[in-house]
């Protein structure tokens, strides 16, 4: 599988060197995901247990409920497992 956006071998720096520091934000680990957490806003009570447990800091705090940062969520499912109101469901990714 190839991607046009990622650039061919001639355009990449030699030896996989990353020439700019602090670039890990550019590495979107969300595409590792096999299952994505989906939040039911009706059930979410904004207790933030998922926010505490998320190993990738991918839970975004909002006024009344939480949202998921899909750029970095790897789909581990800890949030869904810990949610006391069952507001998060893991849904298989369609790729």
């Amino acid at each position: 599988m190839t991607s046009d956006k990622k650039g061919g071998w001639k355009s990449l720096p030699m030896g996989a060197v990353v020439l700019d520091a602090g670039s890990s934000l550019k590495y979107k680990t969300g595409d590792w995901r096999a299952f994505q957490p989906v939040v039911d806003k009706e059930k979410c009570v904004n207790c933030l247990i998922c926010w505490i447990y998320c190993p990738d800091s991918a839970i975004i705090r909002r006024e009344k409920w939480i949202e998921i940062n899909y750029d970095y969520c790897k789909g581990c499912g800890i949030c869904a497992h810990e949610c006391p109101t069952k507001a998060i469901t893991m849904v298989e990714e369609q790729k």
Partner: protein
Amino acid sequence: MTIVGLTGDEAVAYAVKQSKVDIVAAYPITPQTIMVERFSKYVADGEVQTGYVCVESEHSALSACVGASLTGARVFTATASQGLALMHEMLYIASGLRCPIVMGVANRALSAPINIHGDHSDMMGSRDSGWVQIYAENAQEAYDWTIMAFKIAEDNDVQLPVSMNLDGFIISHCMEGVDLLEDEAVNRFLQTRKPLFTIDPEKPITVGALCFTDYYFEFKRQQVEAMQNVSGVLDRVCKEYRGVSGRNYGALETFGMEDAEAAIICLGSTAGTAREVARKLRAQGKKVGVVKLWLYRPFPIEEVSAALKRVKALAVFDKAISFGAPYGALCSDVVSALHTLKEEPKILNVVYGLGGRDITPSDIELVFNEALDTAKLGIVKEKAMFLGVRE
């Protein structure tokens, strides 16, 4: 220029000294020991400005070399046999991170059974590791190639590690007259390394980043390109070195190939013996020739085909076994290089010299005669010959 009596290992150590290497990290192992032993004496006596890193194993030696090379330093290490086997993991890291390290390898058999003598099993086992491989025939060549190896490795179009191989004991411990260049001539030829990137706390970069399915393949493709560039760079470096030393080098050297009907192709010290036997047989009117490969990786496909296109029968000498493979490693490469020729020569694979088993002029004469018979009859009687093994 001065001619000095040196063993192959000492000649390499002297070349490293003249090459103004910044860092050496190595662990002694027979028959490479004298390289690092001599060099550590230069360090102790203040004859060089090199930092010498004492390590507890070859794995650590090459790890230290990778780190040093990434700072932009010129780096040398040396090993053999089990030491090279222990380095195996780091070999791929050195080439993948594009570290132009030069390594002296005094080729030695691999255990088991344990053996300290010369064959090519060690480096042949690492032939897919992305290192350039050069084989020297004698101490003079080991000296010359060590100096040239830095220039090839550090070229912007290459940026790959280079192994400079010399046959354990036969070259590593045998004393010969070696014609040494003046320090000033080596300085002019080599100059200081100019790295394309360096690790520097003032300007941080990331080295060794994770590359998954989306990027890994592209970086391997880059290495393929760098390997292909070696050929042209090597020619240029050899030409420049000829101007400094008066000695001719290239991807390979031929003897009697203008009209040879039967030939031997081999690596390292065996070429000298083969050439002497060929000279004798040619005096008797037998049309034989020798091709000695200096460059084994990248395999010089075009030069090999050009050298062998007229020959009718060819004996390929492998000083290592590739268990279960159709041929020895060198023979497999030669067969693939020649398959595009209109008329391929008949090929005999001669596996010889394992564990340092001596190869004598009469052994080689036997093979030449076998190859001449093959050329005449057009039939290969024995596809694979284990020369010198007791039945």
